[in-house]
């Protein structure tokens, strides 16, 4: 049986892992290679490296970070943050990324999804959607959550799938870093609208939050950062808990 995936996300700035709350207030959380290795030993299923500065200088540092992580773990590795062009994606893939995550660039230039899906296959293209609740819908934001994209998350996820995206990484901006639980309603709304896997992100705090997002949220995978970085919750402890709740996980 296909298991539910637990994904660790590392927000990287200047070669170091940092983490903020609601996209702000960054604090230092360690070396990416060392963290990735610890996660692998604990049984993480996948790793995401997000370059949160994405300046030209940091892009070169990012290639080094990807290489350092990719040499130490043999797991699917996704790279995102500031991938604006086919060249940026190629640099990430050449450095060792298996998948690239597009956010702002996909909304600005949706044809990039198709270009990359043709070049690397859909399995290598993740469309990341940052969204907040607004009325009955879910408003999409871009530029690290600073700019209203005037799109609805469900409708945009459908379009991303039709253009060749292989997975959707859906982050609740309302919940990001708050540890108050995933936005299960938003996750379910998107997961029910597309045929590709949906990775839920934003709000992981306790073990029960993962159980909720896999059952009520219909997520295929759940991503978290801070609860794993600071070793509040180990991946192995989380998986034991999920198995007790009859959620299929890789042990």
């Amino acid at each position, binding site marked *: 049986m296909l298991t539910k995936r637990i994904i660790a996300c590392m927000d990287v700035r200047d070669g170091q892992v940092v983490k903020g709350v609601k996209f702000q207030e960054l604090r230092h959380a360690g070396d990416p290679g060392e963290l990735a290795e610890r996660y692998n030993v604990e049984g993480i299923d996948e790793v995401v490296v997000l370059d949160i500065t994405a300046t030209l200088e940091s892009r070169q540092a990012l290639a080094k970070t990807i290489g350092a992580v990719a040499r130490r773990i043999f797991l699917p590795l996704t790279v995102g943050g500031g991938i604006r062009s086919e060249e940026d994606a190629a640099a990430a893939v*050449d450095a060792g990324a298996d998948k690239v995550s597009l956010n702002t660039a996909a909304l600005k230039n949706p044809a990039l999804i198709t270009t990359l899906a043709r070049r690397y296959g859909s*399995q290598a293209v993740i469309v990341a959607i940052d969204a907040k609740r607004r009325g009955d819908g879910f408003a999409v934001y871009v530029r690290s959550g600073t700019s209203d994209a005037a799109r609805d998350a469900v409708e945009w996820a459908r379009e991303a799938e039709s253009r060749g995206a292989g997975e959707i990484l859906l982050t609740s901006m309302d919940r990001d870093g708050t540890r108050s639980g995933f936005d299960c309603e938003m996750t379910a709304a998107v997961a029910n609208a597309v045929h590709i896997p949906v990775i839920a992100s934003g709000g992981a705090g306790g073990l029960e939050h993962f159980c909720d997002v896999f059952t009520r949220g*219909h997520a295929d995978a759940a991503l978290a950062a801070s609860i794993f970085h600071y070793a509040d919750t180990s991946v192995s402890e989380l998986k034991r808990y999920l198995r007790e709740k009859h959620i299929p996980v890789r042990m």
Partner: protein
Amino acid sequence: MIALIDYGAGNLTSVRKALTALGADFATPSSPEDCARFSALIVPGVGNFASTAALVGPWHDAIGSAVRGGTPLFGICLGMQWLFEGSDEAPEVPGLGVLPGRVTRLQGDTAARLKIPHVGWNALDFRESARILAGLEPRSHVYFTHSYAAPVTADCVAATTHAETFAAVVERGNVFGVQFHPEKSSDAGLQILRNFLEVARGLPAIAPRAEAGC
């Protein structure tokens, strides 16, 4: 020396990285004729079966001739599908045909939320003891990402189920293949690659676990 065949289907960085970590001696042959100097062949690949069209003709002949001569061959993902006669994904492109059967599209199950593509970690159900599975725990999880799969035939040594049951690992004489990505499957995947490297070195692989057959 192992030949890692690069026919432009996806990125080989991860496979190279895993082979390097295992201390394998490998290179990419520059031409089909070059294949003859290698002691084993790996055909990787990600993406659409149509991209194996690049292997039709001289590559097909060179690899086929090496395999018939006893050279071990390991197909990964699309590379495993190519070992069969062909695929519904690109019916006009013939496979290598060293294994009988045709690759078909997985159907999934919408009601049960079993989506296609089949992406993620799923279990291996061992069917036969096999050199390629040596040292692996039964029901080990490995990382898949695919929409098409090969049927369960006499050559299937481990199967996986996602709405339907398909061949996850095949072994027939000197021909081996895995539908998943061993280079992305952590310790279980590295063990499988190590087993192929042992076969390639001409050494017997570690004895299969007693409980492996089922």
